[in-house]
């Protein structure tokens, strides 16, 4: 490896030996592509003319305070995931791979990968926990419409972590032809670094847009954190600024119980899915099943850079419960005419708390995805 892949003590490359060479190949391809103008030009072209970048920065007109939404929900595919699947798709092609595999929780990353597979001509297989297949039927159908095969994973808790286990198993046998298109800034090196760089565009745009709109930096930047890719992408260009960074985790049915997904708030250091990071686990290191109303935040580990940012105090991490997220989902729809993803509603919930307490603050919120996928579930929950 050319980079250490560490963020403080976190990160690293904890995978079976057989996966080290493909990860080294990926790191080399990524670093070379970063220096390659043709790669950059093709990616920028796709992001602009296929995906619809730049995405707008919207000031909330009717909610209290000064809340600005970075509208990744308006990106083609309906979430920030598109940014990095296009980039990884181009990398996979550069490495001569013909097949993509990916894990998905809410289905957003599966849909995005299926999209990249269709666009760039890959055979695509998506691993999805059987529980999530049930919860996100429409996204499963979307993936199939775009030519992907969806494998329902029956092992473990049948959610995102089990889908990752299965994708890693597939990759151990298939890496010669297959790129594992990991969906978040977590997992073994080089994924946390690479995915951050491919998502950095969110914060870069938002930073210049807010300066253009209000003539200064925001006071606070808020994003939801599951694996943490939209948050790290939004935070990256603000790390050196005097700006509060807040990641919002899934507090599920309450931080004091087991039914939550607040890894940084309730987990402790461990090693899962290739990285040293915070992990929700029992006293013996067995990984715990998590809960969130939003499948995309229902994950027992977190990107290692967030673990580091928490430990050094550069970012703060808080929780929003299912109920708080649902109330914000509803409020944003009623007051601004925007249906956001349940995941993003966690960030909105915390932004509204800040707007309430300190209305003069300019709060930038990562609206990571749109809520179409959640409308059916919302209908049942609000009934």
């Amino acid at each position, binding site marked *: 490896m050319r980079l250490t892949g560490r963020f403080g003590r976190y990160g690293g490359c904890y995978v079976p030996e057989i996966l080290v060479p493909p990860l080294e190949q990926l790191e080399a391809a990524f670093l070379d592509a970063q220096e390659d103008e043709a790669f950059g030009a093709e990616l920028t072209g796709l992001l602009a003319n296929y995906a619809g970048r730049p995405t707008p920065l919207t000031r909330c007109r009717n909610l209290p305070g000064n809340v600005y939404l970075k509208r990744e929900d308006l990106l083609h595919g309906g979430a920030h995931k598109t940014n990095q699947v296009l980039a990884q798709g181009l990398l996979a092609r550069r490495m001569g791979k013909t097949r993509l595999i990916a894990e998905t929780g809410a289905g957003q990353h599966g849909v995005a990968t299926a999209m990249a597979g269709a666009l760039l001509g890959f055979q695509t297989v998506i691993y999805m926990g059987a529980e999530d297949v049930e919860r996100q039927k429409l996204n499963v159908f979307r993936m199939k419409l775009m030519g992907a095969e969806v494998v329902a994973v029956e092992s473990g808790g049948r959610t995102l972590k089990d889908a990752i286990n299965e994708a890693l198993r597939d990759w151990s046998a298939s890496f010669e032809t297959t790129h594992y298109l990991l969906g978040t800034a977590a997992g073994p090196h080089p994924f946390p670094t690479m995915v951050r760089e491919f998502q950095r565009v969110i914060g870069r745009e938002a930073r210049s847009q807010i300066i253009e709109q209000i003539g200064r930096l925001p006071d606070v930047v808020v994003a939801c954190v599951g694996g943490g890719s939209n948050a790290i992408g939004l935070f990256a260009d603000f790390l050196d600024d005097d700006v509060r960074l807040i990641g919002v985790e899934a507090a599920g049915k309450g931080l004091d119980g087991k039914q939550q997904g607040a890894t940084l708030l309730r987990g402790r250091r461990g*090693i*899962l899915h290739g990285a040293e990071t915070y992990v929700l*686990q029992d006293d013996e290191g067995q990984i715990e099943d998590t809960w969130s109303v939003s499948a995309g935040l229902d994950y027992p580990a977190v990107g290692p850079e967030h673990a580091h940012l928490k430990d050094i105090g550069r970012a703060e991490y808080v929780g929003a419960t299912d109920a708080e997220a649902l109330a914000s989902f509803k409020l944003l729809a009623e007051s601004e005419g925007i249906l956001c993803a349940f995941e993003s509603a966690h960030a909105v919930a915390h932004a509204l708390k800040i707007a309430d307490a300190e209305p003069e603050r300019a709060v930038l919120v990562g609206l990571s995805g749109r809520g179409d996928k959640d409308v059916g579930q919302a209908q049942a929950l609000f009934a």
Partner: protein
Amino acid sequence: MSRYRAMFETLSNRNEGALGAFLMLGDPDLHTSARLLDEAVEAGADMIEVGIPFSDPVADGPVIQAAARRALVAGVRVGDCFGLIAALRARHSDVPIGILTYANIVVARAGFIRDAAEAGADSLLIADVPALEAEPYVREVEQAGIEPVLIAAPNTPNLTLRRIASLSKAYTYCVSRSGITGTHEGGQFNRGLIERLEASGAPAPIFGFGISRPEHVRSALEAGARGVICGSAIVDRASRHGSVSEVVGLLKTATFNDKGGTTRGRND
């Protein structure tokens, strides 16, 4: 002399390869697990490899995953696993016992490695710690007086093999092309890997994947391995028949290299 070295010397004198039997500790319960371990030794296993169950075993195929699940559902804890190892050690003082588990299990328990050594284990292999990350673990393992085992794969470059050679002690756990236990066509072994390992000075190569039938054992030994570890076939047999004597005995007979059959192993 370490138990592994003594074993390799004895087997070498008898012109035999080593048969390692893998069992998941606590599968399906502590009592049965203890009996299965004894059966494996008595049926001719030269070394015992034991899994400490982890909820998310990414390097294992469906059979071993299911075994770990059964043990965890039965409420088996890491301390119970050390208890099983200690009891096995008390009954069989010479058989090498190696632990195979995952990094999070090791880091979650303060003193895991020391406890493993005290229970009587001889080696530790952490499936998701490659050579790149192995150094701090290797140091701790050696301080505890046991031996680190690392994995080598056909795609592992020579530079890494040399690192593995300098870090690992008891044996080198070789995997064949597919990286997951119990999932690929058995019996295909990479002579190239063995030759590269020998050139790098790594400890005795043992094939750990793809061994389910006697002919697989023979072709692994023919490819130059010093032994084999059979996991999925034994665990599968245990889960369906409640006994492993027959399968272990059958696989052991395939480790005899001598065609004349003059100096057979202890179960003759």
